[in-house]
């Protein structure tokens, strides 16, 4: 009898314990229910149909197991349901990321189209401006009558009289020379930036190529072709100039030139504003192999002034007055003399270069026929 009572007690105790255990749902089930009722549930359902259906199936199975009082089984199903719901949510995230990639791609295409459109407009504007600059330059250095002669006679050069033919050739030669000198000066300026390590030498190739073709056209007597390629070289020069300054608007470069001119003026130099820097006249020479006293002082002062600055390059420009080899040699010797004097006065050899421009006057300061030599001080951007 006692044994029976004890057995009945144990059985009842176990039943009570079982009943208590039944009403405790596992944490995994609560988590799964929370996920199923979350805001993302509908989206997850549409993106990851299969995984989501599996989650719901396991949720049902877990609830049924809990209903049977089998908490362990409920936990088993709820955990599997959670894994499937996590999978669905991950797929939802992936789908969102894919949409994002597509949207960004669309925006990228729009920006690319705009970039191409503006770039094409820029090329057109650059060409127009270079043409205007070239015209302004030629107006400054070639007589109107010659420019007109070169153009008018072009139309009927086949039946020209001998005298007119010579005048035409002379006018064309002068225009061509001035155009080439201006383009070559631009090339020298960019070369000095290459020397300063601001860009690689390969970048000079488009300028050189255009200059070469312009030269060939000149030999063939094709002035229009020569102009076209001299302008192309000019366009490329301006582009590289802007690029070196890291400012496509060129405003920073323009401000730097203004500041440089102002600083040099304050230091007592008489300067002229040029496209790529400021020019300072070098007085005529005193005798063969010598600089005048004024030129010596200017060169010495300039070297002293520039010597304390890292961000300038000097280009000595020399022109000769007569079409003879002797004049050319003298002019080149003079350019070397000025360069050497600058180096002697303390400028680095790599900072000074010289440029012989024949009869042409590529710098504004040289619009004055009496100026046969000048130093172009070119500002270069500071290394960032």
């Amino acid at each position, binding site marked *: 009898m006692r044994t029976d009572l004890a057995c009945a007690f144990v059985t009842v105790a176990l039943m009570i314990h079982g009943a208590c255990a039944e009403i405790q749902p596992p944490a995994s089930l609560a988590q799964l229910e929370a996920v199923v009722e979350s805001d993302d549930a509908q989206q997850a359902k549409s993106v990851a149909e299969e995984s989501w259906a599996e989650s719901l199936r396991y949720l049902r199975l877990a609830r049924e197991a809990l209903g049977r009082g089998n908490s362990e089984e409920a936990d088993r199903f709820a955990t599997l349901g959670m894994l499937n719901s996590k999978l669905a949510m991950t797929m939802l995230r992936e789908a969102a990321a894919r949409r994002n990639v597509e949207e960004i791609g669309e925006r990228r295409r729009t920006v690319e189209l705009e*970039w191409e459109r*503006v770039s094409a407009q820029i090329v057109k504007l650059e060409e127009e*401006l270079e043409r*205007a600059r070239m015209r302004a330059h030629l107006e400054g250095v070639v007589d109107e009558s010659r420019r007109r002669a070169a153009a008018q006679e072009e139309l009927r050069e086949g039946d020209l009289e001998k005298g007119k033919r010579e005048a035409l050739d002379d006018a064309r030669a002068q225009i061509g020379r001035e155009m080439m000198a201006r383009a070559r000066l631009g090339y020298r300026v960019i070369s000095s930036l290459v020397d300063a390590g601001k860009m690689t030498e390969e970048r000079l190739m488009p300028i050189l190529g255009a200059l070469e073709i312009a030269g060939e056209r000149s030999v063939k007597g094709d002035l229009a072709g020569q102009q076209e390629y001299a302008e192309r070289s000019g366009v490329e020069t301006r582009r590289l100039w802007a690029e070196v300054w890291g400012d496509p608007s060129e405003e920073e470069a323009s401000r730097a030139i203004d500041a440089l001119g102002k600083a040099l003026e304050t230091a007592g130099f008489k300067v002229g504003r040029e496209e790529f820097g400021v020019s300072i006249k070098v007085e005529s020479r005193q005798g063969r192999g010598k600089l005048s006293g004024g030129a010596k002082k200017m060169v010495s002062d300039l070297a002293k002034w520039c010597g304390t600055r890292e961000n300038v390059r000097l280009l000595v420009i020399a022109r000769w007055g007569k079409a003879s080899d002797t004049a050319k040699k003298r002019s080149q010797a003079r350019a070397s003399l000025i360069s050497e004097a600058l180096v002697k006065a303390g400028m680095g050899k790599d900072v000074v270069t010289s440029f012989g421009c024949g009869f042409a006057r590529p710098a504004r300061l040289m619009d004055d026929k009496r100026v046969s030599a000048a130093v172009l001080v070119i500002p270069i951007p500071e290394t960032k």
Partner: protein
Amino acid sequence: MKKAISAIVIAICVTALWASVARGGDLLKESAAALRRASAQLEKIEQREDAHVVAGEINVAKAWIEKGFALLREGRRRPAAILAERLPAQINLIRAILSAWAVQEEAARVQEDLDELERKLKLVQSRYDRLLLLRKGANLTLAYPRGEDAHED
């Protein structure tokens, strides 16, 4: 008659016992196979360059595998089977996370490209504005008069 019934009952019991033992054996084999399969799959995933992204989930799976084998060694087939049962879903989850991560990375890369392009566009536009401004003040004719222009005067 009684003997026959006893024999049948005994036969049924023996069959049930045999089936139970056999099922237990199958469960053990299946669980062990599932654990080994999952372990091999995880090893492959761990060799991927982007495995660090799912390090946490890999650790969870590894812990389950380890515990599963331990349970099998103790002869606790049922809990081991429960753990083994979860592993395919966990590995699917790991793969899905990696796939989503790859797309998110691509999105970040494309966004970077776009930012760079937008920066370039801004620069190009500033050059364009500057050139437009310069053109306003420029006399845009030929560098020297030619053709029709030459006869204007």
